[in-house]
């Protein structure tokens, strides 16, 4: 039942490939001298037919949004429209070399400029770079812009404030940007503690990184005051756009006072996750910071055509070319489809779905903070751990048997046995109800026959895997071995 690897399927001399017939003469390899490869790399040797069967069977061993609900909190697994696939496959977009002179790629530049404008309007910012290939890359880019701004002002503060509820990428990006991360605590409301913020704020602070709504799914209602305090010490405010999908058309980071905003295009604008990428993390900034953006940016030139332009104080490039262009094209298509009202409706129903589900589950899986949530909420399974030894991960594994993906577990870190649930706007009320019933059933099992949960999942292609063993003695590649000797 297990699927062999392509290497195990290999037979010496078997081929899938064809190569264009060439009238070009064979060139001598002599000039390569000692660099000529002696042994070909032991790549697979399979037929196209077996290759197709292999990867089709692998695909059948994978859950995906196209199969069903995926309430993975913070990850925002919503439906990825199929027309965006067709946009990304257009030969006049997908077949373009990135180093083609501007006048021969006006369509691309126009599309990117339109996307930049839309992101600025949605976030309330003045300009944006589309280069960062993921949200985390956007964070780093934003922090480097922050640094460039401070240095241009003759300062170089070294600390960045991050709430204890933040995504792990925030502190990691801070470190990579050469800053020191300072944690600000959440209060009993699940929001940034203003008292603790005042405690850590001084002129050694370069900036703050906030997610709003935060990772508990709660809107930081004091955000204006927080940013006033931050700006007061000369620091900048960075908006982590991971949860932007909750408020599109309703509120804008720029209007809240943020200086730098990244957007995860897959979370808000439904570009597909691809099993973990490619993403795209454009970074938008206020006009005061535009001069520091990575270049080049598409801007109208003297002739009226769009040209690549690099800002005078640019921090430099953060991607080899123009970012994940085809991902950007998908987000552009998503925005054009929705229009202003559709985008707002998207956010509203994302919140409505989460709010409804939060309330629906309250009797069995109460939210960690008793506040009306935005687009996601965090429940805690700690009651079951003490009662019956059932952990959040057990409930997650149990859900897999019901044909759903699991929620996010053990995040945010400030909630014990966290179960972070985000239904997204593309799931119907009927799906939400089915999901709620699955959770109810799991809670009942946790109370009555908890041992059963430890066995879950049983109906999946494999069952629980030995992750400790995998890490202790990592097998990261298939050893060249007997499989390669078949003939």
């Amino acid at each position, binding site marked *: 039942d297990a699927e062999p690897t392509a290497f195990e399927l290999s037979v010496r001399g078997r081929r899938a490939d064809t190569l264009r017939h060439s009238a070009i003469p064979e060139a001598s390899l002599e000039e390569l001298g000692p660099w000529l490869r002696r042994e070909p*790399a032991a790549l697979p040797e399979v037929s196209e037919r077996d290759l197709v069967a292999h990867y089709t069977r692998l695909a059948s061993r994978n859950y995906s949004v196209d199969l069903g609900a995926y309430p993975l909190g913070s990850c925002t697994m919503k439906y990825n429209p199929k027309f965006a696939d067709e946009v990304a496959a257009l030969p006049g977009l997908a077949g373009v070399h990135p180093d083609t002179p501007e006048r021969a790629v006006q369509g691309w530049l126009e599309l990117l400029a339109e996307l930049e404008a839309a992101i600025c309007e949605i976030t309330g910012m003045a300009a944006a770079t589309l280069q960062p290939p993921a949200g985390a890359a956007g964070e780093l880019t934003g922090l480097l812009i922050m640094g460039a701004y401070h240095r241009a002002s003759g300062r170089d503060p070294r600390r960045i404030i991050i709430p204890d509820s933040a995504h792990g990428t925030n502190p990691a990006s801070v470190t990579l940007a050469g800053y020191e991360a300072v944690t600000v605590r959440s209060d009993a409301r699940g929001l940034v503690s203003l008292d603790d913020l005042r405690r850590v704020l001084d002129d050694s602070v370069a900036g703050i990184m906030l997610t709003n709504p935060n990772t508990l799914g709660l809107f930081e209602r004091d955000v204006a005051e927080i940013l006033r305090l931050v700006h007061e010490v000369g620091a900048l405010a960075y908006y982590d756009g991971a949860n932007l999908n909750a408020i599109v058309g309703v*509120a804008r980071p720029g209007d809240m006072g943020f200086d730098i905003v990244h957007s995860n295009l897959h979370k808000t604008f439904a570009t597909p996750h691809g099993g973990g990428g490619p993403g795209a993390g454009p970074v938008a900034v206020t006009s005061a910071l535009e001069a520091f953006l990575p270049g080049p940016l598409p801007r109208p030139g003297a002739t009226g055509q769009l040209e690549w332009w690099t800002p005078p104080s640019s921090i430099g490039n953060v991607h080899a070319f123009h970012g994940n262009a085809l991902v950007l094209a998908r987000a552009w298509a998503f925005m054009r489809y929705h229009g202003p009202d559709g985008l707002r409706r998207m956010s509203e129903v994302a919140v409505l779905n989460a709010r409804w589900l939060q309330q629906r589950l309250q009797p069995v899986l109460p939210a960690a903070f008793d506040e009306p949530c935005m687009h996601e909420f965090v429940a805690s399974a700690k009651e079951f751990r003490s009662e019956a030894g059932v952990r959040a991960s057990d409930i997650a594994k149990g859900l897999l048997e019901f044909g759903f993906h699991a929620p996010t577990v053990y995040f945010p870190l400030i909630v014990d046995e966290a179960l972070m649930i985000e239904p997204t706007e593309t799931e119907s009320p009927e799906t939400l109800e089915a999901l709620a019933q699955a959770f109810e059933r799991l809670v009942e099992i946790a109370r009555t026959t908890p041992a059963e949960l430890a066995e879950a999942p049983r109906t999946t292609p494999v069952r629980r895997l030995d992750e400790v063993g995998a890490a202790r003695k990592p097998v990261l590649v298939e050893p060249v071995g007997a499989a390669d000797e078949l003939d």
Partner: protein
Amino acid sequence: MGSFVPHTEAQIERMLAEVGLASLEELYASIPASLRLGRPLELPPALAEVEVLEEAERRSRRNAGARRDLVVFAGGGAYDHDVPSAVRALALQSAFVTAYTPYQPEVSQGVLQALFEFQTSIARLFGMDLANASLYDGAAAVVEAVNLAVGATKRNRIVVSQGIHPRYRGALATLGRGRGLELVSVGLRDDLATDLAAVDAEASALVIGYPNALGRVEDLREARRVADAMEALLVVVADPVACALLEPPGSFGADVVVAEGQSLGIPLSFGGPYLGLFATRSELVRLVPGRLVGQTVDVEGRRGFVTTLRTREQDIRRERATSNVCTNQTLLAIWAGVYLAWRGKQGMVELARSCYNAAHYLADRLEAAGLSVLGRPFVREFVVDLEVEARPVRERLLEDGWLAGVLVPEEPTWLVLTATEARTREEIDAFVDRIAKEVR
């Protein structure tokens, strides 16, 4: 108004009532009124699906695409290779495209095993012990390799060959600034090889191309020796296609091999999404950035795959993580993995050979036309010195349907030309005739 909200208005009303609200606006009660937008976004109005497609197509017609509008002799980190139909079809299965990061391995074996196979193929191609599940692109891979070297050696000084792609060096400068990296550039000799004799002093890494961005195959034996002398890691920025024909960097003792993986069946895509390849030695495994997939067994003893060594990662280590990389380019890694399996052991060699033949035929014809070719030995990319300013020549050739190489910022009369297996003899002959007219 378009949206993918499935709710009918009646259902929205009912759900609102069930959560005790009278309107959707009330969902946002926790947002102070002063922070609400209070007007519709100023964006173009909603379009029907077919109208979006037509708008996109209208824009796409204003781009010159490889093959249909332009014959591409440009590389520079993005290559016009043939994309096999089966590879595209398999990589783009919705079970891969619409999956998330394999956080729940029980329902993610497809993605995980595909990545494990990708890791294996990449490691074997470069002659290294292991590879990760990809990074954002070639530039990011260089940056992460340097981060690893800094972490491993606790030294901030990096020696970087000028033969590294300028945009990769740019990204290194941009992204390394925060950590205070000291980048030392080492120039090229007249034969386009890195002037390793000019390198001295301690460093965390020596970063060198193989072949370099001008196509020249570098002397990795010498690079290893120099790196050893500096107590530095040897970071090789390789070309995965060339490495099918060249002795792999691992055989010369490279510590880290990174590369842009676009050549492995990924369309030109205006520069992205591509994927960064990252391979290294076993000893360095716990410093590897990005995701790693490992083999293990389930409770019934069946083989299975998981993401592993996750304690390196930012969601666990937070500010102590050595990298902030969270996503990778999984879909592209699967795609490249399928491609390497489709080409296969002999097929990759023949592909590289075909590129080699085309590039050498082009170079020989240019030389026969009286132009200077620099950078031998090379595989599929080389420099031609036009001895006149190259930019206007390239612009004029564009008019006639040729994408005539990439420019070299420091050398205005040079063009870096590439020929892949997709270029025919007729195309090369016509191109040489046309370019010869420009410089005559």
